[in-house]
Protein backbone atom coordinates (compact mmCIF):
# COMPACT_ATOMS: atom_id res chain seq x y z
CA UNK A 1 0.00 0.00 0.00
CA UNK A 2 2.71 2.43 0.97
CA UNK A 3 4.71 1.51 -2.12
CA UNK A 4 1.69 2.09 -4.35
CA UNK A 5 1.21 5.55 -2.90
CA UNK A 6 4.82 6.40 -3.50
CA UNK A 7 4.58 5.52 -7.18
CA UNK A 8 1.75 7.92 -7.87
CA UNK A 9 2.88 10.92 -9.86
CA UNK A 10 2.28 14.13 -7.97
CA UNK A 11 1.54 17.29 -9.90
CA UNK A 12 1.51 19.99 -7.27
CA UNK A 13 2.15 22.59 -9.91
CA UNK A 14 2.57 22.59 -13.65
CA UNK A 15 6.18 23.15 -14.54
CA UNK A 16 6.98 25.65 -17.28
CA UNK A 17 8.26 22.80 -19.50
CA UNK A 18 4.89 21.02 -19.26
CA UNK A 19 2.75 23.94 -20.44
CA UNK A 20 2.96 23.07 -24.14
CA UNK A 21 1.85 19.49 -23.49
CA UNK A 22 -1.29 20.58 -21.66
CA UNK A 23 -4.49 20.79 -23.64
CA UNK A 24 -6.68 23.38 -21.99
CA UNK A 25 -10.45 23.51 -22.53
CA UNK A 26 -11.77 26.85 -23.94
CA UNK A 27 -12.65 28.03 -20.41
CA UNK A 28 -9.04 27.38 -19.39
CA UNK A 29 -7.73 29.32 -22.38
CA UNK A 30 -10.02 32.25 -21.52
CA UNK A 31 -8.82 32.10 -17.94
CA UNK A 32 -5.08 32.17 -18.67
CA UNK A 33 -5.54 34.81 -21.36
CA UNK A 34 -7.51 36.91 -18.85
CA UNK A 35 -4.40 36.86 -16.68
CA UNK A 36 -1.98 37.43 -19.57
CA UNK A 37 -4.00 40.36 -20.92
CA UNK A 38 -4.16 41.90 -17.44
CA UNK A 39 -0.40 41.59 -17.02
CA UNK A 40 0.22 43.11 -20.47
CA UNK A 41 -1.96 46.14 -19.67
CA UNK A 42 -0.28 46.51 -16.26
CA UNK A 43 3.18 46.58 -17.86
CA UNK A 44 2.15 48.93 -20.69
CA UNK A 45 0.31 51.34 -18.37
CA UNK A 46 3.00 54.07 -18.67
CA UNK A 47 2.77 53.86 -22.49
CA UNK A 48 -1.02 54.25 -22.36
CA UNK A 49 -0.78 57.23 -20.01
CA UNK A 50 1.92 58.73 -22.23
CA UNK A 51 -0.52 58.49 -25.17
CA UNK A 52 -3.31 59.90 -22.97
CA UNK A 53 -1.07 62.77 -21.85
CA UNK A 54 -0.01 63.72 -25.38
CA UNK A 55 -3.51 63.38 -26.81
CA UNK A 56 -4.98 65.79 -24.25
CA UNK A 57 -2.38 68.33 -23.19
CA UNK A 58 -2.32 70.63 -26.25
CA UNK A 59 -2.83 70.74 -30.00
CA UNK A 60 0.94 70.42 -30.48
CA UNK A 61 1.13 67.36 -28.25
CA UNK A 62 -1.95 65.95 -30.01
CA UNK A 63 -0.07 66.16 -33.33
CA UNK A 64 2.86 64.36 -31.68
CA UNK A 65 0.42 61.71 -30.43
CA UNK A 66 -1.00 61.29 -33.94
CA UNK A 67 2.42 61.21 -35.64
CA UNK A 68 3.61 58.37 -33.39
CA UNK A 69 1.37 56.06 -35.39
CA UNK A 70 2.75 57.16 -38.75
CA UNK A 71 6.39 58.13 -38.20
CA UNK A 72 7.07 56.21 -34.99
CA UNK A 73 8.54 57.14 -31.61
CA UNK A 74 12.31 57.35 -31.13
CA UNK A 75 13.89 54.33 -32.79
CA UNK A 76 10.56 52.46 -32.93
CA UNK A 77 8.84 52.61 -36.35
CA UNK A 78 5.17 53.58 -36.70
CA UNK A 79 4.01 50.08 -37.66
CA UNK A 80 5.54 48.74 -34.44
CA UNK A 81 3.66 51.30 -32.35
CA UNK A 82 0.48 50.26 -34.15
CA UNK A 83 1.25 46.62 -33.43
CA UNK A 84 1.71 47.37 -29.73
CA UNK A 85 -1.60 49.25 -29.76
CA UNK A 86 -3.26 46.31 -31.49
CA UNK A 87 -1.94 44.10 -28.70
CA UNK A 88 -3.40 46.52 -26.16
CA UNK A 89 -6.74 46.60 -28.01
CA UNK A 90 -6.91 42.80 -27.89
CA UNK A 91 -5.88 42.77 -24.22
CA UNK A 92 -8.58 45.30 -23.33
CA UNK A 93 -11.31 43.54 -25.30
CA UNK A 94 -10.45 40.09 -24.01
CA UNK A 95 -10.12 41.30 -20.42
CA UNK A 96 -13.40 43.21 -20.71
CA UNK A 97 -15.43 40.37 -22.20
CA UNK A 98 -13.89 37.70 -19.97
CA UNK A 99 -14.61 40.01 -17.02
CA UNK A 100 -18.26 40.43 -18.01
CA UNK A 101 -18.43 36.62 -18.32
CA UNK A 102 -17.09 36.38 -14.76
CA UNK A 103 -19.66 38.86 -13.43
CA UNK A 104 -22.45 37.10 -15.28
CA UNK A 105 -21.39 33.75 -13.79
CA UNK A 106 -21.18 35.29 -10.33
CA UNK A 107 -24.66 36.77 -10.56
CA UNK A 108 -26.55 33.93 -12.23
CA UNK A 109 -24.50 30.94 -10.99
CA UNK A 110 -24.46 29.73 -14.60
CA UNK A 111 -21.53 27.47 -14.02
CA UNK A 112 -22.41 24.18 -15.66
CA UNK A 113 -19.80 22.58 -17.90
CA UNK A 114 -21.82 23.33 -21.05
CA UNK A 115 -22.53 26.97 -20.16
CA UNK A 116 -18.89 27.52 -19.25
CA UNK A 117 -17.78 26.00 -22.54
CA UNK A 118 -20.23 28.04 -24.60
CA UNK A 119 -19.51 31.36 -22.91
CA UNK A 120 -15.76 30.72 -23.21
CA UNK A 121 -16.02 30.10 -26.95
CA UNK A 122 -18.18 33.24 -27.31
CA UNK A 123 -15.60 35.25 -25.33
CA UNK A 124 -12.71 34.07 -27.52
CA UNK A 125 -14.62 34.60 -30.77
CA UNK A 126 -15.99 38.03 -29.84
CA UNK A 127 -12.66 39.41 -28.64
CA UNK A 128 -10.87 38.07 -31.74
CA UNK A 129 -13.54 39.46 -34.07
CA UNK A 130 -13.57 42.93 -32.50
CA UNK A 131 -9.76 42.98 -32.45
CA UNK A 132 -9.65 42.21 -36.18
CA UNK A 133 -12.25 44.92 -36.89
CA UNK A 134 -10.49 47.58 -34.82
CA UNK A 135 -7.10 46.42 -36.09
CA UNK A 136 -8.28 46.93 -39.69
CA UNK A 137 -9.32 50.46 -38.71
CA UNK A 138 -5.99 51.08 -36.95
CA UNK A 139 -3.97 49.98 -39.98
CA UNK A 140 -6.16 52.04 -42.29
CA UNK A 141 -7.87 49.22 -44.18
CA UNK A 142 -11.19 51.10 -44.04
Amino acid sequence: MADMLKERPVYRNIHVSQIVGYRLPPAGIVSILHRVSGAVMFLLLPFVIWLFDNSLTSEISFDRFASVFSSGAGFLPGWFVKLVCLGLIWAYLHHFIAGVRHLWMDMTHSVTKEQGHRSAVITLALSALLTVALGAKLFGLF
Partner: protein
Amino acid sequence: MSTNFGSKRIVVGAHYGSRDWLSQRVTAVLMALFTLVLLVQVLMPGAMGYYKWAGIFSAQWMKVLTFVVIVALALHAWVGVRDIWMDYVKPVGLRLALQVFSIVWLLGCAGWAVQVIWRL
Protein backbone atom coordinates in the same frame (compact mmCIF):
# COMPACT_ATOMS: atom_id res chain seq x y z
CA MET B 1 -17.79 43.46 10.72
CA SER B 2 -17.53 41.00 13.58
CA THR B 3 -14.68 41.01 16.08
CA ASN B 4 -11.47 39.92 14.43
CA PHE B 5 -8.86 40.16 17.17
CA GLY B 6 -7.73 38.32 20.31
CA SER B 7 -9.22 34.86 20.65
CA LYS B 8 -11.85 35.76 18.01
CA ARG B 9 -9.24 36.46 15.36
CA ILE B 10 -9.98 34.62 12.11
CA VAL B 11 -6.82 33.22 10.59
CA VAL B 12 -8.36 30.66 8.25
CA GLY B 13 -11.63 30.23 6.43
CA ALA B 14 -13.53 30.78 3.26
CA HIS B 15 -13.91 34.56 3.70
CA TYR B 16 -10.24 35.39 3.74
CA GLY B 17 -10.11 37.02 0.32
CA SER B 18 -13.73 38.11 -0.06
CA ARG B 19 -12.89 41.78 0.37
CA ASP B 20 -10.32 41.66 -2.45
CA TRP B 21 -12.72 39.59 -4.53
CA LEU B 22 -15.53 42.10 -4.07
CA SER B 23 -13.36 45.18 -4.64
CA GLN B 24 -12.04 43.70 -7.87
CA ARG B 25 -15.61 43.25 -9.13
CA VAL B 26 -16.88 46.65 -8.01
CA THR B 27 -13.91 48.39 -9.66
CA ALA B 28 -14.42 46.28 -12.80
CA VAL B 29 -18.06 47.44 -13.07
CA LEU B 30 -16.94 51.07 -12.62
CA MET B 31 -14.37 50.75 -15.42
CA ALA B 32 -16.84 49.00 -17.71
CA LEU B 33 -19.40 51.80 -17.20
CA PHE B 34 -16.69 54.40 -17.80
CA THR B 35 -15.82 52.65 -21.07
CA LEU B 36 -19.44 52.96 -22.22
CA VAL B 37 -19.69 56.62 -21.14
CA LEU B 38 -16.48 57.44 -23.06
CA LEU B 39 -17.52 55.39 -26.09
CA VAL B 40 -20.89 57.18 -26.36
CA GLN B 41 -19.13 60.57 -26.29
CA VAL B 42 -16.54 59.49 -28.87
CA LEU B 43 -19.27 58.24 -31.21
CA MET B 44 -21.29 61.46 -30.92
CA PRO B 45 -21.54 63.34 -34.24
CA GLY B 46 -18.56 65.48 -35.14
CA ALA B 47 -15.12 64.77 -36.60
CA MET B 48 -12.61 63.31 -34.15
CA GLY B 49 -9.72 65.63 -33.47
CA TYR B 50 -8.05 67.51 -30.65
CA TYR B 51 -11.02 69.77 -29.88
CA LYS B 52 -13.58 67.01 -29.64
CA TRP B 53 -11.25 64.75 -27.65
CA ALA B 54 -10.12 67.46 -25.21
CA GLY B 55 -13.72 68.68 -24.99
CA ILE B 56 -14.82 65.32 -23.64
CA PHE B 57 -12.29 65.46 -20.80
CA SER B 58 -12.66 69.17 -20.06
CA ALA B 59 -16.10 68.75 -18.44
CA GLN B 60 -15.71 68.73 -14.66
CA TRP B 61 -18.00 65.71 -14.17
CA MET B 62 -15.87 63.76 -16.67
CA LYS B 63 -12.70 64.71 -14.80
CA VAL B 64 -14.19 63.54 -11.50
CA LEU B 65 -15.42 60.32 -13.13
CA THR B 66 -12.02 59.72 -14.78
CA PHE B 67 -10.30 60.32 -11.45
CA VAL B 68 -12.50 57.74 -9.73
CA VAL B 69 -11.81 55.26 -12.54
CA ILE B 70 -8.04 55.83 -12.26
CA VAL B 71 -8.20 54.97 -8.55
CA ALA B 72 -10.44 51.98 -9.35
CA LEU B 73 -7.98 50.79 -11.99
CA ALA B 74 -5.07 50.98 -9.57
CA LEU B 75 -6.97 48.96 -6.94
CA HIS B 76 -8.19 46.45 -9.53
CA ALA B 77 -4.72 45.96 -11.00
CA TRP B 78 -3.21 45.66 -7.53
CA VAL B 79 -5.50 42.75 -6.62
CA GLY B 80 -4.83 41.05 -9.96
CA VAL B 81 -1.07 41.54 -10.09
CA ARG B 82 -0.72 40.51 -6.44
CA ASP B 83 -2.55 37.28 -7.34
CA ILE B 84 -0.01 36.66 -10.12
CA TRP B 85 2.95 37.12 -7.76
CA MET B 86 1.32 34.94 -5.08
CA ASP B 87 0.67 32.17 -7.61
CA TYR B 88 4.02 32.02 -9.37
CA VAL B 89 6.66 33.57 -7.13
CA LYS B 90 7.39 31.47 -4.04
CA PRO B 91 10.57 33.04 -2.55
CA VAL B 92 9.26 35.53 0.03
CA GLY B 93 11.95 38.18 -0.55
CA LEU B 94 11.47 38.26 -4.30
CA ARG B 95 7.67 38.28 -3.93
CA LEU B 96 7.85 41.22 -1.53
CA ALA B 97 10.14 43.09 -3.92
CA LEU B 98 7.74 42.51 -6.83
CA GLN B 99 4.76 43.57 -4.73
CA VAL B 100 6.51 46.76 -3.69
CA PHE B 101 7.41 47.37 -7.35
CA SER B 102 3.73 46.88 -8.32
CA ILE B 103 2.55 49.41 -5.74
CA VAL B 104 5.17 51.97 -6.80
CA TRP B 105 4.33 51.35 -10.49
CA LEU B 106 0.58 51.74 -9.98
CA LEU B 107 0.82 54.77 -7.68
CA GLY B 108 3.20 56.47 -10.12
CA CYS B 109 0.93 55.79 -13.08
CA ALA B 110 -2.16 56.92 -11.15
CA GLY B 111 -0.47 60.19 -10.13
CA TRP B 112 0.60 60.90 -13.70
CA ALA B 113 -2.88 60.17 -15.10
CA VAL B 114 -4.54 62.39 -12.49
CA GLN B 115 -2.14 65.20 -13.39
CA VAL B 116 -3.10 64.84 -17.07
CA ILE B 117 -6.82 65.33 -16.40
CA TRP B 118 -6.48 68.21 -13.98
CA ARG B 119 -3.92 70.12 -16.00
CA LEU B 120 -6.39 70.35 -18.88
